[in-house]
C-alpha cells in the first residue's frame, strides 16, 4: 500500500467533508420535499395546505418565522397561514385579531408583500416595517422592531404558470446575504412546489363547487320531470278513460266510422302516455331513484293486462298478437315495472314489424323464468344489436326514430328495470327474419 502525503491526506479529508455536507443537505432537501408532498396529498383546504407547508419549511430550514398570503378577489392579499413565532404573536396582539385573517389591499405602497406579489420577483428586507406597515401603526412597529431578533426577511412569489397566486415569507435571525447557495436553491424549489400545490387546491375547490351546483341542478331537473310527468299523466288518463268508455259502449252505440276515429285517438293517447312514462322512468334511473316493490306475481295475469293496452296498435297494422303462456308462472317482480317492460318490448315489436305476428311466450328454466317476445320484422344487424340498449339509440339513428316515432329510450329503460329486478335481457335476430327479445326474472 502506497504512503499518502500529508497534503494529499488533507485534500481528501476536505473533499470528503464537502461531499458529506452535500449529502446531508441533499438528504435535508429530500426529507423536506417528501414532507411537502405528503401534505399536498392529504389536505383539502387552502388553510391546511399553507399552514402545513410553512410550518415544515421554517422548522426544517431553521428559520425564525414564516407566513403565507394568497391573492383574494383581485383586490387584496389575505394572510392565510403564519407560524407560531415571537414576531407573529406580537404582530397578532398589535393588530388585535388573529393575524391569519388580516388582509392587505393590493394598491398599498411600500409593503414588501404586495410588491413581491405585483412584480413576481423575490424581495429581501431588513425592515419589518415594510411587512406590517398597513396593519400596525408606525409607532408600535418601531417598538417591535427594536425588540425583535429578526435581521432579515425574504419574500417569494408563489407562481403557477403565468399567474401569481400569492407570496410566502421566511424571516431569519441573520443577514439574508449569509444564506448558503443550498438554502436559496431549496427555497426556489419550495416556491415552485407551493405554486403547484395551491393550484391543485384551487382546482379541486372549483370542482367541488361546480359539482355541488350540478347536483342541485340535476335534482331540480328530476323534480321538474317528475312533476311535469305527473301533470301530463293525469289529463292523458282522463282522455284515455273517456275514449275507452265510449268505445266500450257505455255512452251508447258507436257507429263504425266514429269508432275508427275514436280508436285512432285512443291508440295515439296510449302512445303519448307511454312516452311520458318513459321520461319519468329515465329521470328515476338517472337519479338512481328506482325502487322495486318485489312481490310474487302471476306472470300470465300481468302480461294479459299489459297486452290489452297495446292490442289496438297491433290491430291497426293487421298484425297478430299471440299470447302463449305455457304454465302458471309466479315470478318475483315489481308489478308496474314488469308491465312497462312487457308493453315496451311488445310495442317495439309491433312498431318494427310490417306483416306477420308478434308472439309473447314464457317458460321456466331452473330458478328463473324466461320471457320471449318474437316478431316477424326486418331483424337487426349484428353490429347494431349491442347499441340497442344504450340511451337514445335506435338502429339507423335519429332518421329512423323520426319516421318510426319513439325516443330510443324504451330498451334502455327495459334493461335497467330488468337488471334492477335481478334479471337479464338479450336478443336473437336474423336479418329479414325477425327478432326475439328474451329476458329473465327470478321465480318466486
Amino acid at each position, binding site marked *: 500500500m502506497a504512503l499518502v502525503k500529508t497534503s494529499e491526506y488533507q485534500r481528501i479529508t476536505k473533499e470528503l467533508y464537502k461531499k458529506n455536507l452535500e449529502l446531508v443537505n441533499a438528504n435535508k432537501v429530500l426529507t423536506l420535499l417528501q414532507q411537502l408532498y405528503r401534505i399536498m396529498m392529504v389536505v383539502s383546504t387552502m388553510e391546511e395546505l399553507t399552514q402545513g407547508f410553512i410550518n415544515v419549511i421554517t422548522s426544517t430550514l431553521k428559520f425564525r418565522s414564516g407566513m403565507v398570503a394568497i391573492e383574494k378577489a383581485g383586490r387584496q392579499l389575505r394572510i392565510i397561514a403564519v407560524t407560531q413565532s415571537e414576531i407573529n404573536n406580537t404582530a397578532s396582539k398589535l393588530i388585535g385579531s388573529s393575524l391569519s385573517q388580516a388582509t392587505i389591499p393590493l394598491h398599498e405602497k411600500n409593503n414588501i408583500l404586495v410588491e413581491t406579489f405585483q412584480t413576481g420577483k423575490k424581495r429581501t428586507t431588513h425592515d419589518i416595517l415594510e411587512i406590517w406597515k398597513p396593519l400596525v401603526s408606525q409607532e408600535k412597529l418601531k417598538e417591535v422592531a427594536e425588540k425583535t431578533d429578526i435581521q432579515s426577511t425574504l419574500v417569494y412569489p408563489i407562481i403557477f404558470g403565468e399567474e401569481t397566486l400569492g407570496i410566502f415569507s421566511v424571516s431569519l435571525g441573520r443577514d439574508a446575504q449569509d444564506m448558503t447557495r443550498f438554502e436559496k436553491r431549496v427555497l426556489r424549489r419550495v416556491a415552485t412546489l407551493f405554486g403547484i400545490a395551491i393550484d391543485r387546491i384551487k382546482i379541486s375547490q372549483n370542482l367541488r363547487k361546480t359539482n355541488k351546483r350540478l347536483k342541485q341542478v340535476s335534482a331540480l331537473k328530476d323534480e321538474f320531470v*317528475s312533476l311535469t310527468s*305527473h301533470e301530463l*299523466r*293525469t*289529463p*292523458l*288518463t*282522463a*282522455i*284515455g*278513460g*273517456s275514449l*275507452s*268508455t265510449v268505445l*266500450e*259502449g*257505455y*255512452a251508447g252505440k258507436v257507429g263504425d266510422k266514429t269508432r275508427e276515429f275514436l280508436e285512432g285517438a285512443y291508440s295515439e293517447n296510449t302512445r303519448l*302516455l307511454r312516452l*311520458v*312514462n318513459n321520461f319519468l322512468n329515465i329521470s328515476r334511473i338517472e337519479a338512481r331513484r328506482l*325502487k322495486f*316493490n318485489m312481490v310474487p306475481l302471476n306472470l300470465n295475469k300481468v302480461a*294479459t*293486462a299489459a*297486452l*290489452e*293496452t297495446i*292490442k289496438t296498435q297491433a290491430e291497426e297494422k293487421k298484425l*297478430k*298478437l*299471440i*299470447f*302463449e303462456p305455457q304454465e302458471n308462472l309466479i315470478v318475483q317482480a315489481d308489478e*308496474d315495472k314488469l*308491465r*312497462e317492460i312487457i308493453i315496451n318490448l311488445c310495442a317495439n315489436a309491433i312498431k318494427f314489424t310490417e306483416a306477420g305476428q308478434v308472439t309473447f311466450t314464457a317458460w321456466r328454466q331452473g330458478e328463473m323464468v324466461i320471457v320471449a317476445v318474437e316478431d316477424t320484422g326486418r331483424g337487426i344487424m349484428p353490429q347494431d344489436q349491442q347499441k340497442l340498449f344504450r340511451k337514445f339509440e335506435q338502429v339507423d339513428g335519429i332518421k329512423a326514430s323520426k319516421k318510426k316515432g319513439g325516443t330510443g329510450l324504451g330498451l334502455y329503460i327495459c334493461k335497467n328495470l330488468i337488471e334492477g329486478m335481478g334479471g337479464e335481457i338479450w336478443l336473437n335476430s336474423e336479418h329479414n327474419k325477425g327478432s326475439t327479445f328474451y329476458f329473465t326474472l327470478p321465480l318466486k
Partner: protein
Amino acid sequence: MMLKNSLPNLFFLGYDKLMAKILIIEDDSLIVKVFSTRLESDGHEVFTAEDGNVGLILAKKEIPDVLLLDLMMPKVSGLEVLEQLKKDPRTQKIPVLVYSNLGREKEISQTKALGASEFITKADSTPQQVVEKIESYLK
C-alpha cells in the same frame, strides 16, 4: 290464443253485486264521469265528490261499500281523507282504493301504512281494470 276485444256484457257483469254503494273522491270531473258511467251501468249506486271535504261528509253519511280515492285534491288531500276515514269507527272498515298518478315509493308506503287496500296508478291501469278491482271488493 288471440287477445279478444273484451266488451263488457252489460246484463251479466256485476249482476250478483247489484246495488253496491260506491263513493268516488276525485277532482278530475272527466275521470269521475268515466267511472260513474261504468259503475252505474253495472248496476251500482255511485256517489261522487270533487274535493276531500265533501268526500268525507259523503263517506260518513252514506257509508259506501268501496271508496275510490284520488290523492292530489284541493282543500283536503286524499291522504288526510284516508286518515280521517280510518280514525272513525263508522268508516274505518270501508275498503279504500287509492287512485293516483303519484305512484312513487313514498306515496305508496304512506297510503298502505294508513290502511289503504290498494294503490292503483292511474296511468298504468285501464278503467276496465279499475272497475274490476273495485268490484273484487264487493263480496
